[in-house]
């Protein structure tokens, strides 16, 4: 018998193995609490979760205002990094910090597959 926490972590580790461009990944609630994370440092793990959830929430509000729809995927980038946030069900987010080398389409495809597996576990 394995706990959901272990299964979530396995999905994240598998995702990172399949795509070396992904540096860190996490599953967080929309409240910004960490469900699973591959980040090593505990405070940074929780800050990553809180800020990612807050960024998603703001983007979701903007999207709702502009198009009346919910945000499915949020991608934002800096000079060397990108952050991908994908909604999983109604309650959680899959977040990934990547480098700039990988293709965006490929990253999204990998993340969508992982999000599908996480959603199955959440039901």
């Amino acid at each position, binding site marked *: 018998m394995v706990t959901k926490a272990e299964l979530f972590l396995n999905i994240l580790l598998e995702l990172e193995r399949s795509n070396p461009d992904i540096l860190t990944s996490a599953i967080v609630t929309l409240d*910004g*609490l*960490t469900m699973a994370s591959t980040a090593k440092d505990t*405070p940074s793990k929780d800050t990553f979760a809180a800020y990612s959830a807050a960024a998603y929430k703001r983007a979701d509000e903007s999207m709702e205002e502009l198009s009346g729809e919910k945000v499915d995927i949020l991608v934002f980038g800096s000079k060397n990094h990108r952050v991908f946030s994908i909604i999983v069900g109604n309650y959680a987010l899959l977040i990934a910090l990547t480098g700039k080398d990988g293709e965006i389409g490929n990253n999204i495809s990998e993340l969508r597959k992982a999000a599908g597996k996480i959603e199955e576990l959440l039901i």
Partner: protein
Amino acid sequence: MFFRGIKFIGAIIYIYGIIICYFMSDLLELYGLEENIGFHVILSNLFWWMSVILMIIAYRYRKFWNVGYTPWSFLFFGFLFFGIRELGHLCTSPVINSLRHIFGIWSAIFMTSAFIFFFIVIYMRKKPYLFSTYMPVAFASMFPIFMFYMYFIEANTVYINNIMNIMESLVWMIGSSVTIYTTFKMGTRVSGGFVNVFMFFQFSAYTAFMWKFLGLLETMGWPVPYSIREVVEMLFGIFAIISIYLLTKMLRKLSRDMHGNKS
């Protein structure tokens, strides 16, 4: 199962509280007991001890909101000391009242420190220095030393009580001002349920400031109706219990989601 048990205990405490308050109000009319042993004292004790119970439940789930061990402990002690302070209302002795103010000061120091640590971790994204975790304890320990010093120099007990009362008012006013700032800033960095948690903590801080400000005015000789102060204090308790309830609810939901087994 555990939470159902807590709800059951809460309901029993509430019902007993109402029965006690009913008889208390009769006693007040019959014997004209002092204003500080009344319905509001029972209610305030119920609110704060319920908050302490909720805080204990939230503390069990602290690993889900991993902001560090120290802020969690300080928040817990903030609630616990305020609960003890409220118990002190049941006695009219000036010595017990002075001790009550000490617990009030400790509660203010630990609650304020907890929010400063949350602010450092969440808003500033830094780790608090080790020595900064000892500072609130060192500051808090100065007040009982001062109180015992006053007893040793044989100061009047009523005078000591008044001094401790003024000190408590000042510490709460400064502490709640800091908490208003920290909770406001953290509210801009979090999302979902945490926005509500910090909002209600901020409301608590506003009412705590107002409650102690009115108390200080009264100590200085301004006529402030006792009932107004007590209503404000009651609001302080209600907002605190709501905020800690929201935090506990969020952590329990996550715990339920995380501890489900899949074979």
